[in-house]
């Protein structure tokens, strides 16, 4: 009933249903599907890649939260080095892998760097990301339509291990976000209860996104890829009503009213 049987393949029920609803008739016989997907990825913004202590400092940073960085995919943000001569990205990637980071691509690369990126097997991402330098970001404004969706409202507690993603608009959570839970939104995040898990606002790169919560005890908060972990949060703010905004390369946390 779902088109020709291909010897050697058997679609599982749900796959069959999805495929049947695809207008592209030929995809019925493919053994895979191509889907868009959205991931938040760490951006490593190169400011001075030739600094003699570049790696030592990086290792220091990693040692600070090793679990967070272990095997994490990383995009090299080259916005701050557009006018420099390209550095050896093959060697840099090697070094990053040695420290269990997984370089996957570059963003905001000047044309001169593209060849080097290709040599290192790194994908070239469209300019984007909240970590880009202001000057290099003219074309990287968040898509105007990306914030038009209505806010997503969650009334139940978000428990450890659960993820809630509002991929197009704001996210409003009316119950506690537990340790080990993750919430993410393209726009703002409001939590009218304790926030104990991780919150990622502006996942499509909107630096104007903010995070509001009634009781801050988050493991990590991030806006447009700029993040702080719990240990870095001023102890005076923990347990309090806090609003968080992005200021360039750092987050600003201030007590709420």
């Amino acid at each position, binding site marked *: 009933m779902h088109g020709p049987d291909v010897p050697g393949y058997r679609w599982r029920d749900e796959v069959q249903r999805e495929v049947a609803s695809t207008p592209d008739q030929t995809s019925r016989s493919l053994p895979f599907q191509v889907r868009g997907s959205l991931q938040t990825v760490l951006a490593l913004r190169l400011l001075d890649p030739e600094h003699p202590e570049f790696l030592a400092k990086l290792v220091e940073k990693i040692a600070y939260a090793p679990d967070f960085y272990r095997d994490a995919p990383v995009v090299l943000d080259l916005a701050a080095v557009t006018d420099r001569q390209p550095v050896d990205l093959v060697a840099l990637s090697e070094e990053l892998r040695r420290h269990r980071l997984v370089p996957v691509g570059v963003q905001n690369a000047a044309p001169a760097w593209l060849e080097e990126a290709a040599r290192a097997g790194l994908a070239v991402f469209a300019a984007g990301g909240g970590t880009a330098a202001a000057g290099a970001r003219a074309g990287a404004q968040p898509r105007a339509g990306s914030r038009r969706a209505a806010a997503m409202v969650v009334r*139940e*507690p*978000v*428990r*450890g*291990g*659960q993820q809630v993603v509002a991929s197009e608009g704001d996210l409003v959570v009316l*119950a*506690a976000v*537990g*340790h*080990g*839970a993750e919430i993410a939104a393209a726009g703002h995040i409001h939590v009218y209860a*304790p926030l*104990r898990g991780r919150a990622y606002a502006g996942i499509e790169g909107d630096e104007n996104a903010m995070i509001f919560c009634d009781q801050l005890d988050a493991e990590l908060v991030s806006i447009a890829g700029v993040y702080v972990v719990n240990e870095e949060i001023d102890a005076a703010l923990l347990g309090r009503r806090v609003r968080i905004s992005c200021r360039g390369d750092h987050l600003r946390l201030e007590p709420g009213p």
Partner: protein
Amino acid sequence: MSKVIVVTSGKGGVGKTTSAAALATGLAQRGHRTVVIDFDVGLRNLDLIMGCERRVVFDFVNVINDGIRLNQALIKDKRVDDLFILPTSQTRDKEALTREGVEKVIAELRKEFSYIICDSPAGIERGAQMALYYADEAVVVTNPEVSSVRDSDRILGILNSKSRRAEIGEEPIKQHLLLTRYDLDRVQRGDMLKLDDVLEILAIPVLGVIPNDPLVLQCSNVGMPVILEPKSRAGQAYADAVARLLGEQRELRFTQPQKRGLVDWLLRRSA
């Protein structure tokens, strides 16, 4: 109408089997026809706690896979009428449980029993998910310590997303907190979390607080559900929990410091 209640926790060693045995026994004592099922395939303990390990012939896994009739596997308790045990296999693993098989057994038990108590294995994998899948209510067993509370939070998320009720969009599983091994002295010293701290994180209604009680271990060792030992404070707290499960109002006991006894008072005065 019958109710399927899963006793679960995420974390191991917090008292799931002890609690499942006590609650099932308490429900049967109150005249409700009750069966308690051991879902911990490969690590069966329930029959030990219930003291029927030497009467096991067939088990839950045989019923699912080997065409054994349910009546051949059910063990009738010798102490309490209306109480039955469905033990599990020691030699198989969790893969022996299939969703269809579990569904068939539960559907059959529903015809005969008012309460079906599912004693879940630890963890959040297949075994635990099988135990909670068909549940109407869940008793989340938690110890007053951080790792147990975190795991309980995790299992609450799974109850809300991976149960049958969640999948078909029925009314969600009714959740109850059962705080076990509550040691007032250690709570007061700050070594253990207070009931209020646990409630703040988990935010579900309390079914009971079971005090730490050496009689629990003694009863387990002789295969007697602790609720059958009237001297035991844990047993009394379980009886309260059973009453609350049946919709009665009972004041929480064993959560406040006890009043000093007379001898204690005299000793203090003379000191």
